[in-house]
């Protein structure tokens, strides 16, 4: 299960589109496939071979490794966010699965009836992954919004999630409908007017995906 470099990027793009369209289950499986493929890949095809033509030049190899690391990080991001949006109904720490069983494991990556412990484990993995991905300068609205989504799943961290999303919303830096959906959920019951306003923004941003993204959680 090793995808070519271009297939990897395309599958990852597909995973990101699925995630944005509210299909977190499909996104998780696609991203998991990419993630493992990158783990197994020796290196992506690049030009810049040395004079003998036998091995990539140092520069090409560095570029290939940088690209691989970046794609891997994106796949991990999709998995983590999908885990949060599925409320933990996935297997966690997927990269620890034994190589021989990965293909099978992809099919069983989604849990139809997770236990509380399984949910908690998945959500904790996702929060840890998203915490690790936060840039040192906290400068990336997409990462911040995803992080806030994960924080919002933990009662102890809901205030922090609200603060992060409120700051983004005030600066008109909310990256997507999901961020507004989470904000609306966090405000519900404490400031219903602001919650309704955030929900309206969610529907506006989500466009045709509004019914999947912006409906109230039970």
């Amino acid at each position, binding site marked *: 299960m090793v995808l070519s470099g271009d297939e990897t990027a395309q599958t990852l793009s597909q995973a990101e589109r699925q995630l944005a369209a509210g299909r977190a289950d499909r996104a998780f499986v696609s991203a998991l496939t990419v993630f493992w493929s990158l783990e197994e890949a020796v290196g992506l095809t690049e030009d810049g071979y040395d004079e003998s033509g036998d091995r990539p030049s140092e520069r090409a190899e560095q570029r290939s490794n940088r690209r691989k690391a970046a794609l891997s990080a994106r796949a991990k991001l999709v998995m983590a966010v999908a885990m949060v949006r599925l409320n933990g109904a996935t297997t966690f720490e997927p990269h620890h699965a034994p190589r021989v069983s990965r293909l099978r494991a992809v099919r069983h990556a989604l849990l139809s009836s997770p236990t509380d412990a399984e949910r908690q484990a998945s959500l904790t993995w996702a929060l840890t992954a998203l915490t690790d991905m936060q840039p040192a300068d906290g400068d990336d609205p997409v990462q911040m919004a995803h992080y806030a989504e994960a924080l919002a799943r933990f009662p102890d961290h809901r205030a922090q999630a609200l603060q992060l999303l409120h700051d983004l919303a005030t600066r008109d*830096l909310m990256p997507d409908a999901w961020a507004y959906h989470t904000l609306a959920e966090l405000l519900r019951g404490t400031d219903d007017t602001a919650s309704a306003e955030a929900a309206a923004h969610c529907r506006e941003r989500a466009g045709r995906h509004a019914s999947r993204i912006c409906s109230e959680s039970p």
Partner: protein
Amino acid sequence: MTGSAARLLALVALCTLAACGSHDASPSQPSESLAASAPARGDVDRGRALVALFQCNRCHEGGPLAAVPRAEHCVSCHRAILDGDHGVTAGLDVSAETWTRWRERLVGLDVAPSFVAVSRLEPSWVESFLRDPQDVRPQLHAMMPRLRLDDAQARDIAAFLALGGDATPSLRVTQRQITRGRALLESKACGGCHVFSGVLPLPTRPPAPTSTSVEQARALRLAPDLWLTRDRWAAGRVVEWLMQPRRLKPDTLMPDTHLSRDEATAITAYLFLAERGARTRPTIPARLPLLQRPVGFDEVNERVFRGECWHCHSDPSYAGGVGGPGNTGGFGFKGRGIDLSSYEGVNSGYRDAQGRRHSLFERDAEGVPRLVAVLRARQAEQAGQPVPGILGMPLGFPARSAEDIQRVESWIAQGRPR
């Protein structure tokens, strides 16, 4: 007073043709002196460093520029796509399907003037061109981008690029030569490639085939508007150029039309002394009203962002950590962290000079969102009215149409739906 205006005033010294050394010369013909080349004024070492800083070698090549890998060179990469050279050899890692898709979408930038013999150009013109880029080559889709450089930097770069250029003496020409020069431009079919704005249009008979059709097409796109010749060159150098273009610039696509010195001098006389009107510039299109129909991100993305925007404002993870000049930095620009390659990226704003993020949709005093303001600023730049403090986008490419900007404004007004 501009350099060219001063030169024109200075050259109106009349003399008898006996001293001019041309067979067109006769005692009854007055002549005019076309100025010699002028020396550069800037600091060569600083210019060298600035050329590296502004990454001139990512579009141009040759001459004093250091080479960069093909995958980092805009023109070479585009050329590889258009010529059917597969991605792997261009330093990219893409499938044949992706390659084909790129090829279908690619509009231009498969050719840019090389820096071989760049010292042939007048430093004063290079300076002014860097500060206020004009559309030198009307048939080339891209043009020199407006970079953030000051007068001193432009002067230093011009000095570096002038390095190794020979001084060219002044040239005397007659009225008869001007008339003959026009006839020669027509008979040699120069209008097949060049336009000469501001004069009676040159006949557009295509040039005789001299090379492959791909090369001809590229030569056509590189052909400058002859209106600019008297500003870009010293007259004496134009004569040498017209007689043997490849001797002056070995990689030029300009064909050798086997002109004698007299013929080359006559054409030069016309290029420098023909009465020319002002170059026409596009007008700023009227702002269109907001669309009433729904406008989603897919439409705006397809029609606008996926055009030129992506190239400079992309997701770094697709290209080894390089997000383009408008994201991670380049062409002398600091990284502003703008990612226009995805819905989330567009909504994530930009970093100001202090590193603080702002929305791309912040409104100015007139209520215009910043993203729309930069698109409109490009229209203004093309009309010769650059907007102070705003760099028009797309940088170095034609302005987006009024209809495209209307789409963007309508999408914003509708709440930026995905």
